[in-house]
């Protein structure tokens, strides 16, 4: 396998972008089912552009939830992207207010995972931009397709899409669990902890909230040891 890191980064970014971008069809269909017009569904994908929050919003509306609950669900899941921004800032270093505002729009799960997984800073920017552009383009196009043809997507095609999404997240997680990754054993414990807490909370909290709660719970559980390790580094 002799491929340049740049080509590999680009291929992974576009590959993930295509897989995730196509899932916009499911969002468009869900939005239509919740009573949004195709234009409203497309506006969400253009303006909000963060899948989990979009699904949360239409999910609450579809379940009969009110405006405040729908927006609150979307914002709660959107706080994830604030944490990502903090992580991405030293990698991407956008210069000037306009570039910062443009970069912010593409700060989502997938672009963050792509950027932090890249072996060096230049490749992190490439992965972020290529993944962001691919996802943004396809996510919006397929949102419109899904909203216009909600009923046209067969159950088999939907089952395939449903299976691709967790596989894509696993593929992103995988390298962090391998022996070569820094502190792979701790990464494995953290990943398993996140999964267990999220599953345990699923029956009891609003849909989508368990993901954020799992991240917070794992962060709190690891905090004393991390503080000690940080103190050692500083010493």
């Amino acid at each position, binding site marked *: 396998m002799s491929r340049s890191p740049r080509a590999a980064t680009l291929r992974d970014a576009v590959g993930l972008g295509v897989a995730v971008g196509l899932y916009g069809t499911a969002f468009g269909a869900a939005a239509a089912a919740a009573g949004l017009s195709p234009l409203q569904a497309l506006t969400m994908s253009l303006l909000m552009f963060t899948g989990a929050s979009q699904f949360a919003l239409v999910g609450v509306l579809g379940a009969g939830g009110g405006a405040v609950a729908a927006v609150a669900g979307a914002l709660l899941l959107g706080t994830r992207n604030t944490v990502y921004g903090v992580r991405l800032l030293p990698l991407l270093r956008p210069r000037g207010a306009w570039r910062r505002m443009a970069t912010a729009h593409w700060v989502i799960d997938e672009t963050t995972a792509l950027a932090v997984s890249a072996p060096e800073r230049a490749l992190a920017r490439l992965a972020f931009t290529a993944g962001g552009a691919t996802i943004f383009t396809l996510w919006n196009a397929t949102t419109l397709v899904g909203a216009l043809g909600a009923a046209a997507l067969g159950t088999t095609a939907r089952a395939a899409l449903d299976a691709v999404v967790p596989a894509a997240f696993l593929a992103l997680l995988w390298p962090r669990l391998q022996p070569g990754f820094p502190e792979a054993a701790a990464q494995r414990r953290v*990943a398993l902890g996140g999964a267990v807490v999220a599953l345990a909370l699923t029956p009891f909290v609003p849909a989508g909230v368990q993901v954020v709660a799992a991240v917070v719970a*794992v962060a709190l559980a690891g905090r004393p040891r991390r503080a000690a390790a940080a103190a050692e580094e500083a010493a």
Partner: protein
Amino acid sequence: MSSGALWAVVLAGGVGCYLLKLAGLSVPAAWVQRPWVTRVVEFVPAALLGALVAVQAATSAHHLVADGRLVGLAVAALALALRAPFIVVLVLAGAAGALVAVLTG
């Protein structure tokens, strides 16, 4: 809900989520460079991806469910262990999910 109210929800949610993203890129560098911040954030992706894998593969609304998504996930794990390319992993998982849907349909 009226069309006007739906537009209000769509726009409020969209602008709010964008401002949350912008906030992350706008905090002072000194705040970001604190050791405990970088330390915590170093592990957020693993916790988040672990939670997302579990929730996307094994839940539906408030229930734990086992369907084609779990089969797809197992196939994906096997493909990853065999070092299959990313896109192949996704195609195999999708095919497995579709197959289970057809067989159990």
